[in-house]
């Protein structure tokens, strides 16, 4: 007798995307992020002036028809510099977060799955990193390696991968005890296969949330380093640098520092908001998938 009774259940279209769109704050975050990305990608079309063109007739001026946000201390158009600034900030933020997450996840995965000596060594390394003040170390590393986009990315990644490693390790410790991992063992799967196919995909959710929130934090780190003169070097337009210079002229042209400061705040907020929404979307318990009956 064939038991062909199982019928397809109705597909529940409670997708993750729609959850994020319903989450108002996350949606706001997403809008900010998309706006920032557009600004960075289409900077040459959006900016009214070349960011490095100096209008020496209008130096340190407030908003005018020609310069919507005014000009800086050498007569460059502030709006254009803020728009171009998105490029470098996002670039550094994204690349450093990606590197940091990649490095951290790899070590966390090995540490959590293998346990024993490798776990011990990796965790002691992360402990060491955890007790270093990130800001101070960042400045020290950049000072030693010299400023520049590449170096600041490397410095930020080195200092922050441990957060991802710990997060990933905790997840792996949980996931590897789940029955489907045992099922994979029983089916004869190799360790590498189990790590990559069974454990990693099921341990990713909190990493993805952390990536979004870390992105904001890295943009902040870069701005601070640049603000202190150790980050990206002129004439590349950055928010941190603009904030630094504008700060000296706060009383004459307040927009000079307010505009880049606002951009940094917006970017960080955008990523944080989006991260919160992601957390809700990726956590099935909050999505009402588990029935309470």
């Amino acid at each position, binding site marked *: *007798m064939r038991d062909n009774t199982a019928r397809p*259940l109705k597909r529940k279209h409670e997708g993750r995307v729609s959850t994020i769109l319903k989450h108002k704050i996350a949606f706001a975050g997403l809008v900010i992020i998309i706006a920032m990305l557009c600004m960075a990608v289409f900077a040459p079309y959006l900016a009214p002036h070349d960011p490095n063109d100096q209008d020496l007739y209008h130096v340190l001026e407030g908003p005018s028809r020609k310069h919507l946000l005014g000009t800086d201390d050498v007569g460059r158009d502030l709006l254009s510099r803020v728009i171009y600034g998105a490029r470098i900030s996002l670039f550094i933020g994204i690349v450093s977060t990606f590197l940091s997450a990649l490095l951290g996840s790899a070590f966390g995965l090995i540490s959590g799955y293998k346990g024993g000596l490798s776990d011990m060594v990796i965790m002691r390394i992360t402990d060491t990193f955890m007790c270093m003040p990130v800001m101070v170390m960042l400045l020290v590393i950049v000072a030693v390696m010299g400023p520049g986009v590449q170096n600041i990315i490397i410095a930020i990644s080195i200092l922050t991968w441990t957060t991802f490693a710990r997060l990933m390790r905790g997840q792996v410790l949980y996931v590897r005890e789940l*029955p489907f991992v045992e*099922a*994979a063992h*029983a*089916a*004869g799967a190799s360790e590498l*296969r189990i790590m990559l196919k069974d454990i990693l995909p*099921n341990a990713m959710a909190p990493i993805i949330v952390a990536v979004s929130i870390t992105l904001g934090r890295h943009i902040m780190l870069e701005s601070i380093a640049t603000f202190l003169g150790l980050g990206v070097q002129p004439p590349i337009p950055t928010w941190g640098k603009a904030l630094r210079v504008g700060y000296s002229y706060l009383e004459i042209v307040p927009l000079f520092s307010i505009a880049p400061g606002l951009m940094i705040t917006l970017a960080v907020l955008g990523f944080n908001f989006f991260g919160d929404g992601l957390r809700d979307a990726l956590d099935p318990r909050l999505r009402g998938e588990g029935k309470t009956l």
Partner: protein
Amino acid sequence: MSNKGENILIELDGVSKFFPVRRGLILKGKRRKLKAVDNVTFHIRKGETLGLVGESGCGKTTMGRLIMHLEEVTQGRIRFGGKDITHPTKAQNRGLKKEMQMIFQDPFGSLNPRMTAGDIIGQPLRIHRMTGSRSEYRERVEHLMESVGLHPAMSDRYPHEFSGGQRQRIGIARAISVDPRFIVCDEPVSALDVSIQAQIINLLEQLQQELGLTYLFIAHDLAVVRHISDRIAVMYLGGIVEVASRSDLYSHPKHPYTRALLSAVPIPDPEAEVKRESFEIKGEVPSLENPPRGCKFHPRCPRAIPVCHKEAPLLRRQGGGDHWVACHNA
């Protein structure tokens, strides 16, 4: 139904599994051994179903895991098809995993939530490089889904889109995908709804007939075990107390624990209930860390005699048939 030749497929000889127990958080106290499985001997014939029953913590799940080599055997020997597989090499283990598969209790947890049903079912095929061409692989997965009563069109869905019974069908399809000879069924229906259990039990029986499978059926539900098994082994605190064919075991249980177990299961028939002989035992299952001396069952046993306090009984053949009991009183 099953071929009852004396062809033995799997044989366990004095198998034990001890787990180290450490007490104390900082100072490691005396190392003690928790005897999860203690000197167990039994065999399973080709094509038969051996039911393994017992209450939680009796070691029945560890038993299955030892056979599947998910756990290292501490003492004793396991033979499969005549070959010693107690401590297989890596290559041997791979080969074995093709011949032995496992069905798990938890239909929700035992499927990777990030894989589609088709991928889950085909996973053992990919692991053992039995996929063949792309179209052959697809066909094989579709055929497997059909043979467990799932619509092949559902192969691209994720586990959370299926009901409990359907998920268990996916788990079964995964287990039979590489044409194994032997399957360990670890409580395959206990997490399912009453009306769904029968569907899965029938499916398992049907597949056994079609594919000539041998089952080790681990469960705590005596009625289910009685239904599906040819022979039944009863476990208590890591040891086997009675093994017999199902008709023998259920009509003439010899070990007091088996009798208590049977009497504890209510029959859905109030009139028969009233007439049944009641054989209630007192007390709780002792902890495995500190099992009683002598016969492990004696503190709860209404028939205990002085020798039970001192000496652990061995599993001995009773009567002429294939009925084995570990009791001084039998």
